[in-house]
Every structure is written in structure tokens, then in C-alpha cells.
């Protein structure tokens, strides 16, 4: 079976005023179906841009990104995307924000499912609150609930846990892992936290600095649940940190 996601010679540049900025340059990448892929790379290298191409929000300037052999299209594949920035609708309360995703996907029982996922991210009791009445971390969790609630085939997450404290984060990591292993999702997970990447990912794609391409793909061959103190864990972590270090110092 061919990989679910295949990027070939992918390039992307933007116009900024008079100059052109090249963000992704001839990037190749493939992710198998059901794989938990983590993506790490220096700040501003092009991770978010890659994610937007993955779900069809941006078109490549050159090369191709194919899912099931076709250009990405959320009308055909069901995505669950968690954006790096705040993407809640300020005029809807938490419950309706989560219901919105379900409604857009034409899923029945929206209310029931929404409540279930709000509970899952630990926000029971806040259903009637509006986004401006909750904290940064709570907002992120609502976005996570909204994306997971639609039972997506492909989950794309852009630093979903960045705003969460260590405990909530590890709780969420476990939830995500259990959803993934039970329901056989394909996940592309962008994170800054190498520790996190090694803890949950099957493969870690290390990106170079901008214009970015894949510097290395590291398969993490440890069974879940993983222990952060085990020697292979530490060695994977050090290896990836070392690769990133090269990128940042050459910045």
C-alpha cells in the first residue's frame, strides 16, 4: 500500500512587499496511513506553512502534496486541524464552538458529542462561557475538542499543547495516544517539545531552517507507553536535539 500522504519536490514561497521569501524548498516527505508523525523544526522554518498545504489551505508554488493520490481537499477527506493561533469564534460559547465543527461536517447528535469532548479536555462546567472569559490554555483545549469531535481521518496539530501546563499536557498526550491507537488515525503533530515528540511520535521529521526541507526522519522504535527516563528515549531525544542545534546555530 502506498503512503497516505506524499509530498514530492514541494516548494512554497510568499510575496512580501517587493521581495519573495522562499519558505519550503524542494521538500520530500511521506506518511503512512495510521502513522503518528511528529514534526519539529526551528521557529519560523515553515512548519505551519507545511501544515496549511497538508490540509489544502495553501497551494504549493512547485511540486506536489498528495493524499490518497489526490491534492488535499477537506471536502473529500475529513481533517481535524488544530491551529497554532486562536481560532475560536468569539460570538459562540464553548459548547457552540465545539458543535460548529460537527455541524460543518454534517454530523448528527452534535450536542451530545460536543459535551463528551468538552469533558474529555477537562472543561465540563464551562460550556456556556464565551472565549473571552476563559484562559489561554482553556481556549486551546476547546480547539482540540472541536477538532477531535468530528472523528477525523487525518489529524493535523500545530503545537496543540504549547499553552498547557506539564500535567494537563501529559494528560492530553495520553488521551491523544489512546484515540490514535483505538481508532487508527493518521496524525501529523507539530511541536517544539522534542521530549513530547519522542514521547508520542512513531516517526519524528526534523526540518531544516528556512527554506525548509526534511533534514532527517527518525523512527522511534519504542513501544507505548514510553518511559521518559529509559536510555533509548534519552538517546533519541539527544539525537534530535543535536540535529536541531545544528540548524539553529547556523541561523
Amino acid at each position: 500500500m502506498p503512503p497516505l500522504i506524499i509530498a514530492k519536490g514541494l516548494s512554497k514561497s510568499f510575496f512580501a512587499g517587493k521581495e519573495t521569501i522562499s519558505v519550503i524548498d524542494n521538500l520530500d516527505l511521506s506518511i503512512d496511513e495510521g502513522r503518528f508523525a511528529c514534526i519539529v523544526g526551528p521557529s519560523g522554518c515553515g512548519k505551519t506553512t507545511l501544515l496549511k498545504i497538508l490540509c489544502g489551505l495553501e497551494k504549493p508554488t512547485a511540486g506536489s502534496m498528495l493524499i490518497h493520490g489526490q491534492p488535499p481537499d477537506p471536502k473529500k477527506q475529513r481533517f481535524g486541524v488544530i491551529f497554532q493561533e486562536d481560532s475560536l469564534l468569539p460570538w459562540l460559547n464553548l459548547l457552540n464552538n465545539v458543535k460548529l465543527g460537527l455541524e460543518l461536517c454534517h454530523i448528527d447528535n452534535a450536542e451530545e458529542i460536543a459535551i463528551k469532548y468538552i469533558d474529555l479536555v477537562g472543561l465540563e462546567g464551562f460550556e456556556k462561557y464565551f472565549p473571552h472569559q476563559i484562559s489561554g490554555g482553556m481556549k486551546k483545549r476547546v480547539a482540540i475538542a472541536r477538532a477531535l469531535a468530528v472523528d477525523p481521518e487525518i489529524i493535523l496539530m500545530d503545537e496543540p499543547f504549547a499553552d498547557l501546563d506539564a500535567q494537563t499536557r501529559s494528560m492530553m498526550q495520553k488521551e491523544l495516544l489512546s484515540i490514535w491507537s483505538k481508532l487508527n488515525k493518521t496524525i501529523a503533530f507539530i511541536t517544539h517539545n522534542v521530549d513530547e515528540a519522542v514521547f508520542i511520535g512513531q516517526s519524528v521529521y526534523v526540518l531544516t531552517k528556512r527554506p525548509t526541507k526534511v533534514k532527517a526522519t527518525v523512527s522511534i522504535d519504542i513501544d507505548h507507553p514510553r518511559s521518559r527516563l529509559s536510555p533509548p528515549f534519552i538517546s533519541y531525544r539527544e539525537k534530535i536535539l543535536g540535529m536541531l542545534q545544528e540548524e539553529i546555530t547556523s541561523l
Partner: protein
Amino acid sequence: MPKLDRFRSTLIGVASLATFVIIWQVVTMVANSPFLPTPVQVFEAFIKISTIGDIDGYTLWWHIGFSLYRVLLGFAVAIVTAVPLGILMGVKPVVKSVASPVTEIVRFIPPIAWIPLSIILFSGINRYIFLLWIGIFFPILLDTIAGVKRTSETQVNMAKTFGADNKAIIKKIIFPSALPEIMNGLRVGLGVGWMCIVAAEMMGGEPVGLGRLILKYANLLQIDVVVLGMVVIGLVGLAMNYLILSVERRLFKWRVEIKA
């Protein structure tokens, strides 16, 4: 707490209006022009017109009723035409390219200038609707476009990732996001609509309507009734505005008020 605030602000508002009326009384008493009525004279005119009626025998309530009816119809037609077109123009550059040369010319043309054409093109109530629509339509259209442009790209992107089609994006993201500007457009449009009532009723025919009342008495140089007509239009407008604002208050309780 918010209740008390509402109460206080109403109090300030009433005091401000009262001050306005007192200043008016003093100025007109000092000026003593035969054409500058005092508030007391306007009040007397109010008593007369609302009980006995005007020179044609119509009381104030008929005038208010007819004008209100015309404005409401014009307003309704303007809303159902301007909001969808505004959203489309905000969202589809092609629609904007096609429509805006025409709208951007027509929106400057005074309603009075339309009178001859509207008499030819329409009949009965449609003439009034057309002339009022001309006034109300464009503020709503422009404010709607401005609201659409305020829409956050991230929010639209979010909806797209859920496979939302254009219709759903407009309904669930763009429309609610632009709603504050649209509501503002309604308020501006309503004001311009009432501003056009004299022009619309200048067309003549039916002898009733607040605009007609003003015209009749302006021609007779009985400015007290003219000012009465102005005050009544202002107050009816105020009441309609209040209705829109209370809808707004319900819709926009999610908004954070800034203070400086």
C-alpha cells in the same frame, strides 16, 4: 450593577435632552424671529395637529402611520437586497468588479433627483419604497462589505478544514463576524431613510405623511409645525433605533467593551 449603570445613563440622557430644550427655549425667546418657534409653540402645534388635525384634517397619528409604513417597507427591501449583495461583494472579487461601478455611481445621486424617474417607473407605494430604498440601501451595503473585510482569515480557514462550502462559511463565519458592522449599517441606513422621507413624500399625491406635513406647513411658513414634524421624525427614529440597539445588545453580549 449593569442595571444601575443603565439607569444612570438614561438619567444623564434625559438631563441632556432637557438641557437641549431649555437652551432652545432661551435662544428662540431672545432671537424673537417670526420664523423661529420656541419649544412651547411647537408643543402647542403638537396639541393642535394631534387632536384637531392639519389643514387637510389628518391628525399627526395618520402622518406618523403612513411615513412609518413607507420607511419600514423601504427598510425591509433595503435589508434583503443590501446584506446579501454586500456579503457577495465582500467575498467574491468578481461580483465586486461587476457591481461596484454601478453602485458607486448610483449611491451619490440624490433621492429628489430620482422623483421624476420613479414616477415613471413605479406606481403607488412602490414609488415610496424605491425612493426610501435609494437612501437606505447604500449605507447597509457599504457597512456590510466593511464587516466582511474584517473577518478573520484564521476563522475562515478553520471552517474550510471542516470541509465547509462557501455557503456554510458565509452563514457560520462571515455573516456572524460581520454582524456588528451590518447592524451598524442598519442604523445608519435607517437614519438616511428617514432623512429621505421628505424627498419621497415630495412626490405628492397622497396628502399624508410626516414629510408632507413638513412641506405643507413650510409652504405656509408655519415653522412651528415644520419643527414639530422634525421632532416627531427624530423621536420615531429614536424609538426604532432603540429597538435595533436592544437586538444588538442581545446579539453582542459576547463583545468586550474597551474603555480608555
